[in-house]
Each structure stands twice: as C-alpha cells, then as structure tokens.
C-alpha cells in the first residue's frame, strides 16, 4: 500500500494548521522522506503562500479531481527539496467540488510514489474536514493552549472516535512557557489531561514563525528557531523515533530575572 496519509486538522481556525503542515513537510523532506502536501482548504488556498510556491501554480486539486490534469501535473516541487511537493487548493471553487471518495482515490495513487502524503484540512467540521480525514491513516490535531481551541479540538477528537479513525495525536502550538509559568496559560499537562490523547509535539510561541511565513521559508529551515526545532522533533516522532520533549522553561537564574525585568513583560 506504500505511503502513509497524515491529516492535519484542528476544528478551530487560526491555530496553525497550515504552518504545521508546511513545517512538517519540510522537516520530513529534510530527513529523506518523499513528501507531498495537499491543501484541502478549497476556496481559501494558503499552503502555497506559506511555502513560497504561490507563483508556480498551474493546476490545482479540483483540476485533478475533475480530470483536467494528472496528479503529477498539479504538483509543485519545492525549490530546495526535490522530494517535496505540494498540491494546491482551488481558489475559486468551494468544498463541495471534492468528495471524501475523491480524496481516497487521489491518495491511493499518491501512496505508490510517496512515503508521506500530508493533508492540510480546512477549519470546521463540515465537508472540507470530512474530505481531509477520509483517507487518513493518522490524524494530527493542532490546538493552542486556549479554551476555545481546546474545546474545538475535543470536538474533532470525538468525531474521529465515532468514525473509528485511526490514531490521533496532539500538537500544542503557540505555547508560551513564560505565561505557563505565571499560571496565565494552560500547561501541556493541562491540555493533555483534558483531551486525553497522545501528545506528539509542543511548539513554543516564537517570534521567528511569522517572519518565516512572510518570506515563504518555513521556520523549520531556521536552525536557531525553537519552533523550528519543535517541528523537526515532531517529524522524527512521526517516523517512530523516540525524541524527548524539549525543555520549555526558560532559565530562571538571578541575572536572567533581572534582564527580564529590564526587557519588560514581552522580553
């Protein structure tokens, strides 16, 4: 059967699904996997711009499904990784242009040529979500340590459970360790406690993420970024490696505390 289909979803919008998909795609390609990323958010195409590939789109997902092109023709190869491709979403159509059966059919073709097929799900729990999870062997649920995002994640996990979808794993994105320390943000333990699902990664809030998206170079390529390291760790865990969770608490020695006082709360 070949490659594995991994869907990235969240319920709530804006928690970082597309950023996660882009970064995991790059991180997996860096460790030698043949990867294709599918943007399933039809009508709100985004993955291409985060990856810096928006100028090279000729065909899209709906063109494949409606038979106007072969899957290969719609794939855009990444500039730096010859084994990393994306299939962009259609921008002028809506979610009903694709069915769950279409997604299963397409991914079955892609499984022959790729190790990992990663699907970036749209927000919500309607048609677009159903399309994205239909072919999944594994589902990554992205959440933020906030009440609304956790609630929506729980809803998605519940839906996947009732459909007997194979193993789900949780990514806690945009965790601010300093706020957790002050008791102003749910900790990773709180979130996993509430959602009762396997944790596969914690991505700290990081000032390098937005500039990376700005320039279309996923933060995983930045060796000095903690978020980038977190994504690389998740990629290794996806490959079955046991990677310990990174130390998130900042140094709290005397001088660091003084320094932080001078830098102010946002330091």
């Amino acid at each position, binding site marked *: 059967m070949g490659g594995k289909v991994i869907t990235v979803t969240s319920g709530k919008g804006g928690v970082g699904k597309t950023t996660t998909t882009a970064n995991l795609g790059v991180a997996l390609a860096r460790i030698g996997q043949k990867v294709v990323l599918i943007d399933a958010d039809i009508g709100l195409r985004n993955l291409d711009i985060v990856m810096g590939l928006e100028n090279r789109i000729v065909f899209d997902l709906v063109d494949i499904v409606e038979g106007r092109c072969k899957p290969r023709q719609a794939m855009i190869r990444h500039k730096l990784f010859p084994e990393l491709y994306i299939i962009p979403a259609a921008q002028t159509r809506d979610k009903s242009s694709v069915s769950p059966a279409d997604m299963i059919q397409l991914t079955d073709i892609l499984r022959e040529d790729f190790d990992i097929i990663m699907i970036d799900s749209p927000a919500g729990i309607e048609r677009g979500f159903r399309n994205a999870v239909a072919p999944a062997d594994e589902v990554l649920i992205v959440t933020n340590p906030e*009440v609304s995002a956790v*609630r929506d994640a*729980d809803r998605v996990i*519940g839906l996947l459970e009732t459909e007997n979808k194979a193993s789900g794993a949780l990514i806690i994105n945009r965790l601010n360790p300093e706020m957790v320390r*002050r*008791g102003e943000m749910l*900790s990773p333990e*709180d979130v996993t406690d509430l959602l*009762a699902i396997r944790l596969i990664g914690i991505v700290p809030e990081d000032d390098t993420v937005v500039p990376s998206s700005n320039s279309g170079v996923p933060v995983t390529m930045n060796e000095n970024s903690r978020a980038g390291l977190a994504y690389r760790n998740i990629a290794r865990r996806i490959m079955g490696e046991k990677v310990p969770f990174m130390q998130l608490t900042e140094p709290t020695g005397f001088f660091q505390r003084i320094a932080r006082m001078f830098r102010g709360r946002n330091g």
Partner: protein
Amino acid sequence: MPEFLDRILGRAPAKKSSTMAKERLQFILVHDRINLPPERMEAMKKEILEVIAKYVSVDNENVDIALQKRERASLLVAEIPFLKTLEGVEFEDPDDKPASVSLIVPDDAEVEAAPAAEAKTEPSAKTKAEPVEEVPASNETPAIEEVAKPAPAKPASASKRRR
C-alpha cells in the same frame, strides 16, 4: 510581582486564570461529549429521582448525580441515599411514609370520599379533586382502597409529592 506582594501581606493569591480555564473546560467538555447541555442534565436528574422515588424514599438533601470523565469516556455517577425505611417495617412517623405510596394515591379529596361509598364514587371524586395530576382518576381506583387505610396524614403526603 503580585504573588510576592500577596505572600508578604498574607493574602490568599487570586486564582490563576489557567486554573479557571482548566476547570471551565473540564465542565464544558464532559457535556459536549455526550451532547447534553446542563439544563437538560438537570431535567434528567429530576426525572431519574422521580422514578426512584416511586420505589424507595430518597434522601433528596444528599443526592449527588454528576457527569465524570474517565480518559475519553464520559459516565454518569449517581449517589442517591435512601431514607431509613426498611421493607416490612411499619412507619411510625407518617412523614416517613415512602414517596412511592403518595405518588400512587390520586388525591386526598378522593381518599376522604372513599369510606363513604367506595365503589361508586368516581364521578364525585373527580369533581372534588382539584390538584389531581395527569393520571386519570378512574385507573387508580383500586389503589385507593389499599392506600386509604395506612394514610392518616394527608397534608404531609400531599406536600411530599410536590417536591
């Protein structure tokens, strides 16, 4: 440094917002998962207690019915203590009369009418019984004969039922 100030002044520190987030989510998620909003849950609790009260008398003050979660499963955990009345033991205090009995009794008015003309009082009983429930009085007539004897304290039984 508000925590530090709290400690110096011996104040209890304000509840952390992360703790509030977790507590609120614990409550919301358990209701979300079974698709039962809190108001419906209250209605269900009430109904469960009514059913149980038909058979045994419930210590309503100390009832505890709540949703719990165990991993990703939700369960309804109920602690329903009974009043100390054993089967076969006479009730000395009329107030301890099990709620089940008072639930079957159609109404005080009918009980009063019963000794006079047991079998043929249905029409008159109906007219007298103002607060009768939806239960049709005619169906319950056999019950009247049995219950009428050990029920001297009518106001007590009536008020009990309305709980």
